[in-house]
């Protein structure tokens, strides 16, 4: 039986007068990979940040499994460890080695012993192919390696769901592949993920559903085939055409 992991109902976010998005509804089932696309400034990052309460929504509700995490008495820190997040600019803890980056949450949030945390952190780094780089500081790693540490750091908390906010858009073209590869593997292993990205090859191959957001609204959502070959809205078609054009060019150059 299919079970929703994340349910979003009428989610609304404003900054003062400015409404970023209004009445967003979304259901994410166990094992789903959802790709969100849309022009910049549309509210995709803000939406992801609302999902793990890094930004407070102004209205609407979010359930993680059966718990309403937008309820008043919720322990946010408790919630966040179950929702992994990967950032566009990696945001590694720059004063800690790759291993220590992954260990930090295990020790201070999960209260694991030093030994257990160390073992688990090494395991997670191996999972993203960075066993060798465990003792490197972020400043000694390439962008692609840093982002993979970012993924390991989030995975180490054993999250129910992972959020990726344009995880490859700050990377040089030759480093994008290694990060997408890790994400592809995660998706096939059954991790539930929401990914904001414009890597259309990845989306087509991995996404169960693609969500097209524009100006704070979900314009259209559907399977990759539906969106690519039978878009219901003119705007979806235009946007997809624009980015595949761009993506195609990039691929040729690389």
């Amino acid at each position: 039986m299919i079970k929703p992991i994340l349910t979003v109902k009428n989610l609304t976010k404003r900054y003062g007068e400015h409404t970023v998005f209004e009445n967003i509804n979304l259901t994410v089932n166990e094992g789903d990979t959802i790709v969100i696309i849309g022009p910049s400034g549309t509210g995709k990052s803000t939406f992801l940040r609302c999902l793990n309460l890094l930004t407070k929504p102004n209205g609407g509700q979010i359930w993680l499994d059966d718990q309403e995490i937008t309820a008043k008495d919720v322990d946010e820190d408790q919630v966040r460890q179950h929702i992994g997040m990967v950032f566009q600019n990696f945001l590694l803890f720059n004063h800690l080695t790759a291993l220590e980056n992954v260990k930090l949450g295990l020790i201070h949030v999960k209260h694991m012993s030093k030994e257990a945390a160390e073992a688990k952190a090494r395991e997670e780094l191996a999972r993203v192919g960075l066993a060798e780089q465990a003792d490197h500081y972020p400043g000694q790693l390439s962008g692609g390696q840093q982002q993979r540490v970012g993924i390991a750091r989030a995975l180490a908390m054993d999250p129910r769901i992972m959020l990726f906010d344009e995880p490859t858009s700050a990377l040089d073209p030759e480093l994008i592949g290694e990060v997408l590869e890790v994400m592809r593997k995660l998706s096939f292993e059954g991790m539930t993920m929401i990914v904001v990205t414009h890597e259309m090859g990845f989306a087509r191959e991995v996404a169960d559903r693609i969500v097209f957001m524009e100006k704070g609204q979900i314009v259209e959502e559907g399977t990759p085939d539906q969106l690519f070959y039978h878009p219901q809205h003119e705007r979806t078609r235009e946007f997809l055409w624009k980015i595949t054009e761009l993506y195609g060019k990039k691929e040729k150059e690389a």
Partner: protein
Amino acid sequence: MEWFQLLQRFFGDFMQGAGVTLELTAVGLLIGFVLGLALALAKTFGAPGVSKFATGYIELFRGTPLLVQLFLIYYGLPSLGLTLSQTLSAYLALGLNSAAYQAEYLRGAIQAIGDAQMMAGRSIGLSRWQTIRLVILPQALRLALPAWSNEPISLLKTTAVVFLIAVQDLMAKAKRAATTTYNPIGSYIAVAVIYLVMVFILDALLKWLERKTKIPGLETDTNPA
């Protein structure tokens, strides 16, 4: 080289005074660091009222001469029923004053590390205070170090006014040497040399500390040459 003969004659006296000067610097620096860190955190992460208070404190203490603060504490507080010894007054004035400057160095670094790292810390379930303690401060303190290194030296020089409330620091000894020998210029040059030596040693120490706390790839040099 009359100042050199003066230095020889009053050497013991000067060393005693230099000891007091170093004590004043150390105590002022310590009070200033603890209070300054609290002010910097209050200013960056505090509720609006708390943050305003911290800003006001910093502006007030940076906007008035230390000498006035010293006199206000030593001569002024007794009329409010709080009488402090000369040494305690000097400690307090130097500490309260240095706190304002240290708060600014630290705040700059905390803000530079700022929101992004806070978000990263909170995203794995660390609390606000945990993130400040485990993620932001370890980076901010390193980042602040090159700029902060000015403060110990600056404070050491600043202590030289406390002889005006008769604390027996190096300057007080110089004044005594000046009156007993009728040679003010020689006396003050002699202690100027001692101050210079202390500043050089302190500077070397701080440079060493900076090298020791450096993390590979973490750029802490905010003013590259």
